[in-house]
Structure formats: structure tokens, C-alpha cells
């Protein structure tokens, strides 16, 4: 069992920043998420996208920094504000946008929608739409890693509202008793829908106490600073990676689970239909001064790691990819009626259930189809 939170387990800035190429790629990922979601909002307003749609803009550094610190086959799972995680994980933007359009070329053939982004090839175990419901699933991923004796770490993202759910408590407890390799990440944007965290969460200004209650490591990162996020996830991920438990008959090793408080902010409403009367424009504008993309751009320019021209090119590329995603989604065929009864069961199971095939997955290499 790891010691409860102490001051020195709380993050301090380290200088193990990723190499230049990776930094530039991280900037591109954040730009892509932002431009992609700007297009998403337009498409939603044009009623091309239905249902609930939760925009990640403002929080990009958390998903991008965290994912950049992982290895590709570390499984991740998140809540319904999930476009950013999917893109950061490597889901092709076409595939993500087509899902929101309900097209058969979407990541879940248009059966999941905005809140349910799944991508097996990229080890993305879904967006999950019941608050906190994915926390025990994340523990299952970590249990399976330990069971199979793999050197991975699972990452379970959730919003600050999920902290108040019972599923969060049970997940934290199980992970702690079995020393599971998992990072629980609260993307703490300060509001669960319209309820400020201090109104809904006990000890909201001391979330480390939540981790301490399970004897779990605790870390904080500035979720609007991609370098800080990266460094914290790298450090904590390496401590948790490959953890095993003697309770499960294995040699006890590794740092076990960690609870990471990523302090961040969403610029948009909770969902597309949020009038945002619970916060002031000044508050939003203050946060925008710390914008994650501007901060990284400043870092790259100040340290002569990139030129303004290169950065403009990246943004252009992100805009183009987002436009292409819209085009792709628009032109893709609808989910056909023949898919209505497929994927209910894995095997053929009497009429009317039949097993359907998967559409061809698109990758960077064949996205021009």
C-alpha cells in the first residue's frame, strides 16, 4: 500500500519535457481538437448532429498531455465529453465526425454518437454517458492488465461531477486494495453541468483528501498547461505501470493507483444547450488568458523550437482536417436500416438478430477514400 498524500507527492514542475517533434505534434493535436470542435458546434447548430453534444474546447491540454505521456496500448476510458480524447488517441477526425453525423463510417457506425466514441485499434474504451459509470470499467481494464501480467497502465478520465457518485468510491477502493495500475483523472473544470464544485463536493478545495481516504497517491496538474500535464502523467504513469498485488497472488510491486486532479476549464457550456447563467463572462475570459494552445505556442517560440510561420501552417492543417472531416461525414452513407439489428449479440441469435460486418477502418494511409 502506498502512503497517503503528502506534500511532496503533489506535483512540482519538472523539466523532462518531450523532444521538439513531440511538442509540435502535441500542439497540432490541441489545434486539431479545437478546430474540429468549432466545426462540430456549427454542424450541431445546423442540426446535422443530434442528441447531446459536449464540447471540450479549453480542456485540450489534459487529453493531449495525458495521452502523449502514455504508450499506445495503455487503455483509456472517459466520460461523454470525449471527442478530444478520441482525437488525441489517434482516431481519425473523419471517423469521429461521421459518428456524430450518425453515418455508417463513424467509429461506432453511427450507433453511439457524440457521447460514445469507441476505438479498439487505438485502445480507446469509450466515452460513457452515465456520470461515473465508467470508473468501475476503468478498474476492470487495470485488473485485466494485472491479470495478464502486462506492463501497462489504464487511464480513467471523468469530470468533477463523477466524484460525487458511488461508482467513483467503489472504483477507487477496489483499485487501492488490489494495487491496480490505473490513473484516475478528474478533469476538474469546476462545474458539473451548472453546479459549481464547491456546491456539490465535500472538501472541494482539498481533493487530495479523497485519495488519502484510500491510501492512494495524489497528484495535481495544471490541466491547461500541456507540458505540466505531460510531466505529471509521465511520472505517475511510470509509477503505476505494471503494478501487481500479493492479494491477487502476484508479487507485490509498483506504485498502484494514483488520483490526478487536472485543474482545467471549459470555455463552452456543459452541452450545446447550456445558457451558462451560473458563471460570468469575466470568469470565462480570465480563464481564456491561460489558454493551453497560446501557452504552448509561447513556449515553442520563446525557446526557438518553432517559428510563427510553422505554427500558422499547423493551424491551417488542423482547419483543413476539420473541414475534411465535415466533408467526409456529409458524403458518407447513413447507417442503413439493415444495421438496425446487428451488434446486439456477438453471434447470430435467431431472427431478427444477425451479425453485421464492420465498415473498413480508416487510417491516415487510406483516408482519401
Amino acid at each position: 500500500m502506498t502512503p497517503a498524500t503528502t506534500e511532496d507527492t503533489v506535483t512540482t514542475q519538472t523539466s523532462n519535457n518531450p523532444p521538439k517533434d513531440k511538442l509540435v505534434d502535441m500542439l497540432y493535436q490541441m489545434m486539431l481538437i479545437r478546430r474540429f470542435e468549432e466545426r462540430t458546434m456549427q454542424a450541431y447548430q445546423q442540426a446535422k448532429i443530434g442528441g447531446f453534444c459536449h464540447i471540450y474546447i479549453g480542456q485540450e491540454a489534459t487529453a493531449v498531455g495525458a495521452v502523449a505521456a502514455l504508450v499506445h496500448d495503455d487503455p483509456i476510458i472517459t466520460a461523454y465529453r470525449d471527442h478530444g480524447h478520441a482525437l488525441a488517441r489517434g482516431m481519425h477526425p473523419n471517423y469521429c465526425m461521421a459518428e456524430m453525423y450518425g453515418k455508417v463510417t463513424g467509429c461506432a457506425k453511427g450507433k453511439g454518437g457524440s457521447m460514445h466514441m469507441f476505438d479498439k485499434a487505438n485502445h480507446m474504451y469509450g466515452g460513457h454517458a452515465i456520470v461515473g459509470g465508467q470508473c468501475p470499467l476503468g478498474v476492470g481494464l487495470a485488473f485485466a492488465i494485472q491479470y495478464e501480467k502486462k506492463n501497462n497502465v489504464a487511464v480513467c478520465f471523468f469530470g468533477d461531477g463523477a466524484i460525487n457518485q458511488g461508482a467513483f468510491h467503489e472504483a477507487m477502493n477496489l483499485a487501492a486494495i488490489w494495487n491496480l495500475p490505473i490513473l484516475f483523472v478528474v478533469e476538474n473544470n469546476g462545474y458539473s453541468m451548472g453546479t459549481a464544485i464547491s456546491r456539490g463536493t465535500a472538501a472541494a478545495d482539498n481533493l487530495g483528501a479523497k485519495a488519502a481516504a484510500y491510501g492512494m497517491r495524489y497528484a495535481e496538474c495544471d490541466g491547461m498547461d500541456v507540458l505540466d500535464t505531460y510531466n505529471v502523467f509521465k511520472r505517475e504513469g511510470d509509477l503505476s505501470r505494471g503494478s501487481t498485488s500479493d492479494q491477487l497472488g502476484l508479487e507485490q510491486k509498483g506504485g498502484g493507483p494514483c488520483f490526478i486532479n487536472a485543474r482545467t476549464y471549459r470555455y463552452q457550456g456543459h452541452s450545446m444547450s447550456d445558457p451558462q447563467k451560473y458563471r460570468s463572462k469575466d470568469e470565462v475570459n480570465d480563464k481564456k488568458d491561460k489558454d493551453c494552445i497560446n501557452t504552448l505556442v509561447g513556449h515553442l517560440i520563446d525557446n526557438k523550437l518553432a517559428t510563427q510561420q510553422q505554427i500558422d501552417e499547423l493551424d491551417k492543417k488542423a482547419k483543413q482536417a476539420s473541414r475534411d472531416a465535415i466533408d467526409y461525414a456529409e458524403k458518407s452513407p447513413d447507417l442503413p436500416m439493415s444495421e438496425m439489428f446487428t451488434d446486439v449479440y456477438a453471434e447470430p441469435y435467431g431472427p431478427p438478430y444477425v451479425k453485421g460486418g464492420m465498415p473498413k477502418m480508416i487510417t491516415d494511409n487510406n483516408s482519401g477514400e
Partner: protein
Amino acid sequence: MQTIQYREAIREAMEEEMRLDDRVFLMGEEVAQYNGAYKVSQGMLDEFGPRRIVDSPISETGFSGLGIGAAMYGLRPIIEFMSWSFCLVAADQIINNAPKMLYMSGGQFGCPAVFRGNNGAGGQLGSTHSWCVESMFASVPGLKLAVPSTPRDAKGLLKTAIRDADPVFNLESERMLGLGARGDKDFSRYIKDTWAPPTTKQDEDFTIPFGVADIKKPGADVTIVAAGRPVHFALDAAEELEKEGIDCEVIDPRTYRPLDIDTIVKSVRKTNYCVVVDQSWPFASVGSEIAAQVYEHAMDDLDNKVIRVNNDDIPAPYNRTLEQEMLPNTKKIIDAVRAVTYSA
């Protein structure tokens, strides 16, 4: 006749599948060091060790969700609920996550997990511990629901469940775990081949497919449909009614989802009378569904309405007499058969 207990049949199914497939593990409350709250998993910790026989804390949301996540990753969890009554606190996991994952992910992530445990009234446990969950869960697409009534079915169906790529709810019964042990009435005069699992070396390959009903007792005069523990009430009733010259056919669907309606309808076409027994509450129950399907398929073959026998529409009482009276018991089935065949 082999005297394997129902609980031993469940254990054998799990042990055999665990020997065949390292991805299979058992998790639940008291399954390991305690040897199972009802001794179903007795001795399994010794053979398989704490990696695969895992004691969980009392944390149904946590460990059932863990099973689903592990299944998505590629393992084959068996999640034991000490009682299905305790699954209600994990409803979001077992009915919102498990059966919908394959569909929501467009076929990418399934949930090959088994959830199993005792269902229905035990012995004077009061209303919170006496849930019959079949009617509530049978309406959820994406899951499968098995309700074994004999040691043979318990073993064969559970082995199928463990191998199945979809989430399976296996509803057992505290009142049946000891079946086969104490010289219980086993009705083997009717069902000589279908009481106990086979004992030969081919046991490992013995499975019972889902969606195939079993004729527990052939008969000519009236069809009684029952699954799980009520099968025994129905066989008791059939024995009694035989003395009155009424020859009952007892059909055990064995799985409610998928449901072998064809075998039921075939029987009704022969007997022209139908009583449907299930141990959940009557409103919108699996029994109601079967009755509706019988009407849909065999309306013209029925010589009377279908009569349903259910748990009474009340929370389970603690009082022993009332509890027994609430069940879809032998007496109620006898009355129903007499009424439906105009013999009352």
C-alpha cells in the same frame, strides 16, 4: 442415478471451463477464502489460486463494473452475486453497460461476462432479499438469461454461458443448491436422462445450448411452462394431477432470452391447454410474455384462455406460511390446471 448436487454442478462447470481457458476467473463476495457463502466455489481457491478466484469486498457496482471492463479487455469473468437481490445497486453496470457495449461501440467491444447467483425467495429472508429478477431483466436486449432447474441443466447451461461472447445472467436458487443431495424427489421416472450431467470423460464437452427448451415431463392433456425452481412445483403438481387422470406436459424453456417459443407452441398445439408459471410478480412478467406469444402463435389451438401462475403481487413476507403461500407453488399450479382444463 448420480447424486450430484446442483451446487456441485455449477462448481464443475466453472472448474472445467477454468481449466480450459486461463482468461476465465471468478470474482464475488466470499468466493475464495470463505469457500463461497453457499459453498458453490468450495475448494476452487486451492486449485486456481487468488489470481483467478478473487474475494471482492461488498461492492457490487465496483466488481460487476470491473468484470465488464475486464471482459472488454479480453478476459472472461464470472461475477458471482451472493444474491441477485444485491445486483440492484449495480443496475447501471449490468443493464446499462454490459448488454449495450457491443451495440454502442458498433461491434468493437463486447462483454463476454457471466453474472450468476441465487435468485428468488430463499427461506424467510424478507422482501429485500427475495427478488426474482427475470422479468425485470428479460426485457433488455443484448443480454442472455438462463434459468437452470436441475443439476444437469445447471452445468450444461453455465458452461455455455462461460463460453458465450455475450453477457449472460445465470439465475440459480438458494432453494435448489442442495438438490440431488438428500434424496430429494428428483422425478427421474420422468426425466431419467435429464436430471444429472453425464459422468463420462466427455464431461468437458458437455454443454446445453441456449434457446432450446426441455420437455421435463411429456404429457397429453395440458402444457405447463415453467423454468428454474417452479419446474419442481410443476412436476409436483403433475404427479398429483396424474392421480386425477390429467396428463401434464411440463416444458422448461431453460433460457428466457433466447426463448424457445417453438417447443412451447408445439406442445400447446398438442394439448390445447396452457398454464404458464413463473416466480416473479405477475405484472409485465416473463410469464405474461410467454402467454402473449402463445396467443400470437396458437390462438386457434387453445380451448381455453392461458392461465398464469406467479408470485403474488406483494413484497415477500417474512412469515413462513405467508411466504410459502406467495410462491407459484404446487397448489396454485394444480388449481390452475384444473381450471384451465375445465376440471375444477
